[in-house]
């Protein structure tokens, strides 16, 4: 297992350049800690595949150095990097049985027969493949095939990192949670560094200890799923993570409060913020943190409710504040008035963004 480090790594398919716009992946410094589970998440074209290919060695970065455990491997070919990869569609040897599929990487390395046998059986046991070991690779279900692909990586002692490229795409929806659970168990047992690449936020958030959120060749935020949800560092995180997305409203600062047109939203702690903020300032708050009540309270604003959608386990109410629609998630047990209610912004969850970036304010 290895700790992977990016030292100013970037890539332009046109070669090193002063023009950052030419970069599919903009130069960045990044650590991948040993034994952690990462997800590379972002819309298509965000650069996540380029990043993956740089780690595996399929792409040599135009800028910077890649280190595995401190050793510069930028010029090392893929075959010498000890990487295991599980692809979107299962790649297994259909002419071999499951046992031989798992043993294959070890036979290539000419390991003694008894050692191969122990390894294969251990891994098969962990992946619940013991009962299919003698079955041919052909005709297995998609999830079993993906487990075998994973198993071929696990049998090796020398694997630096396991890369997973949308591995659950082909798996039946109701079986996904079992495979997700298995991936976590594998990570815990083998202390493996794993990197999952996906455009699906649920997949990324369920799998990862840390999510690397990307857009336009740049890293937007690296954090635990909970951090991305509760403390988006960027408006894009607020939009991309969570459903419905975070609400944003243009605002200005005035006497320790945020002013949305003529509505004053108190935000204690704002007085400690001495940064001078020119340009776009926005208030951001997630639908689950806004409070919509039937009765007035000191800091609540009276708003019309224009739509309520009962989604069974909760409702989504649409309210209008200063001409702008906001979504509020309301627990199902809470009774709402029909046409209007009182909206308040809990300071702990009310965020301030300057030019799309979070402004840290120490909120008491």
């Amino acid at each position: 297992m290895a700790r992977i480090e990016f030292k100013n790594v970037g890539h332009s398919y046109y070669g090193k350049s002063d023009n950052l716009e030419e970069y599919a992946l903009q130069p960045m410094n990044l650590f991948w800690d040993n034994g952690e589970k990462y997800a590379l998440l972002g819309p298509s074209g965000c650069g996540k595949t380029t990043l993956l290919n740089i780690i595996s060695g399929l792409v040599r970065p135009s800028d910077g150095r890649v280190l595995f455990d401190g050793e510069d491997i930028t010029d090392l070919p893929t075959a010498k990097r000890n990487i295991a990869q599980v692809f979107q569609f299962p790649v297994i040897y259909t002419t071999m049985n499951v046992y031989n599929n798992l043993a294959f990487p070890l036979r290539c390395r000419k390991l003694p027969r008894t050692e191969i046998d122990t390894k294969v059986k251990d891994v098969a046991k962990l992946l619940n493949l013991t009962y299919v070991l003698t079955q041919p690779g052909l005709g297995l279900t998609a999830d079993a095939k993906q487990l075998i692909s994973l198993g071929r990586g696990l049998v090796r002692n020398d694997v630096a990192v396991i890369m997973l490229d949308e591995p659950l795409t082909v798996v039946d929806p109701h079986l996904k949670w079992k495979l997700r659970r298995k991936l976590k168990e594998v990570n815990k047992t083998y202390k493996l560094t794993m990197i999952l690449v996906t455009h699906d936020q649920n997949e990324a958030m369920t799998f990862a200890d840390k999510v690397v959120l990307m857009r336009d060749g740049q890293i937007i935020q690296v954090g635990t799923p909970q951090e991305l949800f509760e403390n988006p560092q960027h408006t894009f995180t607020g939009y991309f993570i969570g459903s419905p997305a975070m609400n944003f409203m243009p605002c200005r600062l005035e006497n320790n409060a945020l002013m949305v047109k003529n509505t004053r939203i108190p935000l204690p702690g704002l007085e400690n913020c001495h940064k001078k903020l020119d340009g776009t300032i926005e208030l951001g708050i997630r639908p689950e943190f806004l409070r919509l009540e039937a009765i007035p309270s000191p800091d609540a604003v009276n708003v019309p409710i224009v739509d309520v959608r009962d989604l069974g386990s909760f409702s989504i109410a649409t309210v209008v504040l200063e001409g702008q629609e906001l979504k509020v998630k309301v627990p199902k047990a809470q009774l709402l008035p029909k046409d209007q209610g009182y909206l308040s912004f809990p300071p702990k969850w009310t965020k301030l963004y300057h030019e799309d970036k979070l402004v840290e304010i120490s909120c008491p």
Partner: protein
Amino acid sequence: MSFILENISKNVNGETHLADINLEIEKGSFNVLLGPTLSGKTTLLRLIAGLDRPTGGRILMNGKDLSSVPVWKRNIAMVYQQFINYPHLNVYENIAFPLRRARISSGEIDRKVRSTAELLQISPLLWRKPIELSGGQQQRTALARSLVKGTDLLLMDEPLINLDYKLREQIREDFRNIFVENDNTIIIYSTTDPMEPLLLGGQVVILNKGRQLQAGLTHNCYRNPATEEVARVFNDPAMNMIDGIVDGSRVVLGKVISVPVADHLKALKDGEYRFGLRASDIFLRQQAKDDIELSATTELGEISGSETFIHVSHNRVSWVIQEFGIHDHTLGEQILTYFNSRNLFVFDTEGVLVAVPEQSTAFSPVY
């Protein structure tokens, strides 16, 4: 206009793909076919479209049997999982295509194309080719083409399944607006996602393994699932189920968990039952004094949008708990869970609904 499916069945090579489908669908209504993969949704849509013929039963449009009417003579539009556009035509011509075939005057075509494009918010893109559009814009173009004709029936077979999460969210919002404005066309929309009928409204038809389990107003079916099977299919995560008994004046779940006899449980006769509890009715904090506390072991925390689905086990019973917000739960963690017998659904041993929780609970949850 009336549209009726009467005893529709479809067998292929001796295998039953659909059996006993009976539906009466109103003009201008919006209908969702909900069911897991292989439940018969696509088969049913293909029969309605005329792409396949039913083995038995009749499809009646205004009293006329459609079974022998070929697909090109039926006034139907269909939207598929893959959005299909003509790559060599621009958006305008893609939308106009079905009208040009129908030999409508160019002034009329222009008016229809522009108003449909307006509805789908693609007016600024009319002169672009499909390849210059994002996935969402392509899907909207395909949708505009199917709407422009003003057909009697619009069939949509899992139209959002291949789109990414954020796009799905956005287009679903568009759909709802279109459905609300529509008052002539019957729309039939299929999905595997139990949230979609709730988000889109209208009526729902719940299918599983080729059978029609329940049909009716979406929220009514959600609150009164006719059977345990419906409760499983029409909840994401599936409704948690546990065996139990009513004995004298006691209600006991899973042999050992004795729960208070809530009002809706009082009329139950002694005997064995299956009890159901939605994932969103199990909490990690106590909500009411008479809540039942259970300790459980976590198996996995799954994230879905802004919710965490915690898979837990308790004495070999596997349950899923829905938690607001995104939280980390490690494998094998011991946690305390709370639920209230007021929220129990009750099914008999055959799986038929016997009692449902009362509508509104008068407390506000603590998160």
